[in-house]
């Protein structure tokens, strides 16, 4: 009887277990294994090369370039999109005519397919007759090529990402705001707290769990971005707007250097893991769970 239960238990677990191994654990282990192998080419099968791939990575200027790009990208998108999403959530949390319309408008970028978003912005950025140039032109400014020049390409992509992310994060902050009992703000008001004090001492600290969740997600998203770059710049010019995952994509699936691609992936996963752990420790004392 007992052993039958045991079998039933495993049978029930099996489908989920199969999927998680098939799509998560096995690929992860294969990737780590591949990073210690050479890339198979033609008749030459792959062979164990130890840390050769990692040595190559340390000496690879493009890797360092995209890593730095990615850090700038994270620094540019995360704080701004979080601040913006809090501001938007606070705004649409009060009662006013057309509130649900504004909420929907804020959330629209999240619902739109990534490719559509990238194409919309491609149009905005188009030199000469794009939206930005038309507006600038009305003020007598000349043409700009934001996506085409190395100085502005990354910035232009950062703007697109903020636009896309802020509305998504707003939903979480809106939910967090609505979970705060209104009596807390009323009690604070009676005690002489103004709007800013209420936000700083009550609303924001009480949203810390959401901030932690959102910031972990934002970091992952910052290292996961590939589709916008694919459409908008292709990583150029001269890798000025290329990010880590895009570089991995190019290495693995355009140049078919799968071993080096696996090495890059392992490094990225390690980085993300470190960031997530770091965030939990950093926020730990500040986060109050009810």
């Amino acid at each position, binding site marked *: 009887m007992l052993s039958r239960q045991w079998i039933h238990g495993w049978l029930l677990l099996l489908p989920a277990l199969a999927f998680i191994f098939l799509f998560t654990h096995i690929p992860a282990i294969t990737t780590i294994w591949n990073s210690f192998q050479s890339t198979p080419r033609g008749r030459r099968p792959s062979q164990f090369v130890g840390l050769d791939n990692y040595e190559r990575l340390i000496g690879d200027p493009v890797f360092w370039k995209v890593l730095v790009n990615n850090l700038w990208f994270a620094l540019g998108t995360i704080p701004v999109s979080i601040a913006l999403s809090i501001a938007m959530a606070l705004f649409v949390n009060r009662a006013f005519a057309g509130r649900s319309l504004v909420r929907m408008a804020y959330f629209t970028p999240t619902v739109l397919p990534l490719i559509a978003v990238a194409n919309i912005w491609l149009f905005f950025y188009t030199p000469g007759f794009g939206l930005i140039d038309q507006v600038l032109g009305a003020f007598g400014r000349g043409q700009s090529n934001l996506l085409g020049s190395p100085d502005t390409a990354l910035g232009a992509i950062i703007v697109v990402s903020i636009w896309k992310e802020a509305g998504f994060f707003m939903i979480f902050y809106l939910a967090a705001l609505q979970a705060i*009992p209104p*009596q*807390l703000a*009323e*009690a*604070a*008001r*009676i*005690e*002489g*707290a103004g709007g800013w*004090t209420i936000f700083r*001492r*009550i609303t924001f*600290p*009480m949203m*810390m769990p959401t901030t932690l969740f959102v910031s972990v997600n934002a970091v992952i998203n910052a290292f996961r971005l590939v589709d916008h770059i694919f459409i908008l710049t292709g990583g150029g010019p001269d890798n000025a707007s290329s990010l880590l995952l895009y570089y991995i994509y190019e290495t693995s699936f355009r140049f078919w250097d799968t071993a080096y691609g696996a090495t890059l992936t392992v490094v990225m996963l390690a980085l993300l893991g470190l960031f997530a752990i770091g965030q939990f420790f950093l926020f730990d004392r500040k986060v*109050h769970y*009810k």
Partner: protein
Amino acid sequence: MSPGFTARGRAIRLESIVKRWDDTVALDQVHIDVAPGSFTALLGPSGCGKSTLLRIVAGLEQASAGRVMIGEEDVTDRPADKRDLSMVFQSYALFPHLSVAENIIFGLRTRGVKRSERQARLERVAHLLGLEALLERKPSALSGGQQQRVALGRAVIAERSICLMDEPLSNLDAKLRQTMRTELRALQRELGFTMLYVTHDQVEAITMADRVVLMNAGRVEQAATPTELYERPATTFAARFIGTPPMNLIPAAAFGQAGLRLERALGVAVQVGIRPEAMHPAHGAGTFEMRVTGVEYLGADALVQGRIGEAPAQMRVPGHAMPEVGSTVAVSVAADEFHVFDAGTGARLATPDPASLLARTGFSVATRGAEAPVINQRTP
């Protein structure tokens, strides 16, 4: 006054307060005077507008019309923090991410009180409320009663002249509620502030307050001392709301000829109100007869359900002297235990000399005996 506390109560005066939401009128021409330093309870069933009224006094809600006066000042358009009052919420509204100490001194901090002063006041309040050992805890690590004390601490530390409380005891269990009633009352006396206290619990209102403002459907039914409210209810609503079990309201016709003569003498259709504890089984003929339909034994006493004529009524008798179900008992009632209400408007009819009126109309009332009625203090 305990040393170090300097709060002095100020009067509150509400003039013709009206509150409308779209079509619904939540408060309709409410006048209330609260004496400085008094404990006034706003009592009423849920939805009667008492909490809304409190929020209007607090400045959390704007009245649609009317004036709010505190002391001699018109504060109608003043924000909540400029009215020199504190408030305890039903949910306590403690800040869950702040320690007990930080919760209590929150207001002092926002007003920029110096650190040494904050600390001194915190120690005094913590001592007063017995919170010394809990100051570093978060509210979630406290029991309901302790949270209640923290909310009280936050309300009294600033030594405001007025304290508003919105059903502060309703989240506590019955036993703790009883202790806190005594403590709250003692605290208010000691610190001397004016207390405006919202409750739906008549026992709370009657045991704690100097004055009870009974509200119903956005209007004041009666504002009086607890004794007066019990002994001379101004309306049938007040008569039924105060007292457990509620006052019997019996149409005059149920008393037969005597009842009809009473109505003729007063010139209107009347309802006669008699408290269950004012009715006593008579040894002789009694004032009227009651047919017993049920008996509920409660220990010290028993509730007798029955009918007077066709009207249902309840009588409280000692637990050892229960009548048989199905029997008919003679009941005697003293003349001043008869409350006469206008059957149409529900208002109390003035009867300057009830004894002679009742004698004239043919009620043989009892003279006031040894058994004086007491306010029923059983907690629900």
